[in-house]
């Protein structure tokens, strides 16, 4: 028994030294041993192979339309007129179409139930479910036992992820080095491969850097390639500790969430910061809440009223390797970070877009929209006109009225001529 413990201990020491030697040291000096790239390539091949195996295994099952990997249900996209018209055509007594019929309610009923099962806003806020399985059982509900080989690979994967990647990043995380080095280690710990495009457009001092927001890792991703002053709300707990350690190395601007409500105070502080040309560019995520990395919701116009030069940055995560999305309502920070660290890898692309300034005759909202479209266009994201705040707000009465108006125009239209005849 004791012999076994000794062996295990020796093994542990060896492993630890490998970890330190191969990962921490190069990271400190900014040298890449090229491991990550090889690692990613191997990963891609493995995942493709795994997907093929599953698909072969599932061939007997009835093929269902896989049009929307995100959706639970297949929605009919017909307009109200089309759908109700179809309903009525089967009704024998109706020739002119314009009468009310009992089956009209079916249309509203079905729409209502569809929305209970899935609505467009919430869909944006749930993680993308992948069409191909990435060996992380979290992201695919249909995982089932396909073959022994697959299970072994999966087991190996679990081992690697939990025994190698995880301690690695915990260790890295607690280190207390200089600003960029610190972030670089974090990036290594998360097995992040980041590709920066158009580095010539990198944000300069005295400017505002604006990016779409998917996860707290965004900060790590961006800070890997430059020094920024952060604007953000103070987080409690673990994140707060991290924040305070960052503040030591660079001048940042932190706010309480309630302070954020006082837009003028916020605006003033930011203005003062950028007026000072020696200060680092401010990093702002105008969306205000985490989106699931497939769409860019409406940017809050506050950041755009301050003036100054805006440097838009588009961040897009490759979902094939690990889902970086953080649903703050569902997970707290620690469990989120745990998930991140035990994912295979984080691969993302960062595009620096050419700087934009507000033009004459353009108000803050239009400017914000312009920046938003540029970011969405670059990142290949869907440009949504939903406001991220919808997640927490209720709808207005006027939208219901619109539905009623649409429906009544179908009924009243040719209806009223017959009404004068009246029932016998």
């Amino acid at each position: 028994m004791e012999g076994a413990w000794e062996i295990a201990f020796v093994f542990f020491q060896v492993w630890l030294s490998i970890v330190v030697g191969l990962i921490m040291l190069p990271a400190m000096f900014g040298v890449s041993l090229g491991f990550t790239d090889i690692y990613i390539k191997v990963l891609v091949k493995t995942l493709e192979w795994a997907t093929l195996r599953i698909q072969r295994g599932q061939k007997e099952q009835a093929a269902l339309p896989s049009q929307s990997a995100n959706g639970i249900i297949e929605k009919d996209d017909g307009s109200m007129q089309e759908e109700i018209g179809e309903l009525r055509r089967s009704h024998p007594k109706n020739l002119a179409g314009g009468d009310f019929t009992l089956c009209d309610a079916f249309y509203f009923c079905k729409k209502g139930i569809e929305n209970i099962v899935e609505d467009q806003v919430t869909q944006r806020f749930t993680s993308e479910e992948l069409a191909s399985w990435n060996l992380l059982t979290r992201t695919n509900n249909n995982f089932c036992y396909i073959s022994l080989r697959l299970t072994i690979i999966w087991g190996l994967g679990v081992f690697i992820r939990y025994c190698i990647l995880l301690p690695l990043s915990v260790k890295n995380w607690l280190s207390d080095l200089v600003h960029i080095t610190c972030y670089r280690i974090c990036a290594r710990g998360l097995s992040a491969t980041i590709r920066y495009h158009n580095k010539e457009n990198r944000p300069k001092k005295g400017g505002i850097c604006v990016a779409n927001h998917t996860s707290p890792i965004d900060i790590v991703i961006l800070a890997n390639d430059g020094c920024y002053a952060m604007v953000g709300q103070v987080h409690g707990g673990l994140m707060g500790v991290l924040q305070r350690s960052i503040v030591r190395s660079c001048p940042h601007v932190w706010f309480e969430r309630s302070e954020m409500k006082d837009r003028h105070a916020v605006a003033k502080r930011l203005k003062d910061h950028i007026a000072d040309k020696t200060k680092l560019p401010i990093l702002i995520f105008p969306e205000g809440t985490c989106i699931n990395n497939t769409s860019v919701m409406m940017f809050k116009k506050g950041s755009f009223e301050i003036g100054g030069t805006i440097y838009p940055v588009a961040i897009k995560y490759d979902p094939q390797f690990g889902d970086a999305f953080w649903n703050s309502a569902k997970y707290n920070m620690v469990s989120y970070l745990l998930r991140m660290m035990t994912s295979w890898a984080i691969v993302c692309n960062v595009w620096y877009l050419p700087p934009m300034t507000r033009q004459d005759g353009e108000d803050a909202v239009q400017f914000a929209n312009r920046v938003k479209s540029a970011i969405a266009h670059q990142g290949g994201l869907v440009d949504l006109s939903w406001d991220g705040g919808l997640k927490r707000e209720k709808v207005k009465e006027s939208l219901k009225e619109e539905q009623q108006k649409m429906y009544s125009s179908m009924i009243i239209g040719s209806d009223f001529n017959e009404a004068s005849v009246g029932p016998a």
Partner: protein
Amino acid sequence: MGSTNSTLLKIPNVEVLMQETGFSPAHIIRLHDRFKALDKEGRGHLCPHDFGAIKELAMNPIGDRIIGAFFSPGKETVDFHTFVKILAHFRPVDKDRPKEPNSPEPINSRSNKLKFAFQLYDQDKDGKISRDELLQVLRAMLGMQVTDEQLESIADRTIQEADLDRDDTISFEEFRKSLEKINIDHKMSIRFLR
């Protein structure tokens, strides 16, 4: 079945639920996720307020009635089982199902779908749609866009067409007969992916 088992085990009586409703394990899991997403305070059941938070539903002219269909009379909460059973009405009809004489009718049969729709009209659940109930539905669907007279004439005409035994109300049988040519399976079904 891998990880799906762990989620399914958390749901009590899930086998019975699947058998009664005909949903596959994957569907149940997705509905469970949806249920949890709607149940923001994590109480394990939903109340009308949780449904009201769905934007498109609040916009639906008969949204209140649809929400009401989930809650049995007197009850103010709906648990996961009831949630799934109600949604089961909207599963497409199983065409390949063998017709066993002694088994109960499936929840998603044509008749049960019609009953669900009938319920939306018949709020006092007396088995008949009275003229008043019809007026209320019409008012909900048309809002302030029509006058009272227009509403009354529409209601009169509808009853006239459907009411066969001339008792000034529409019974379920009359309702069913009036809609016999409608493709209920298509109009009252939602196709669940995978």
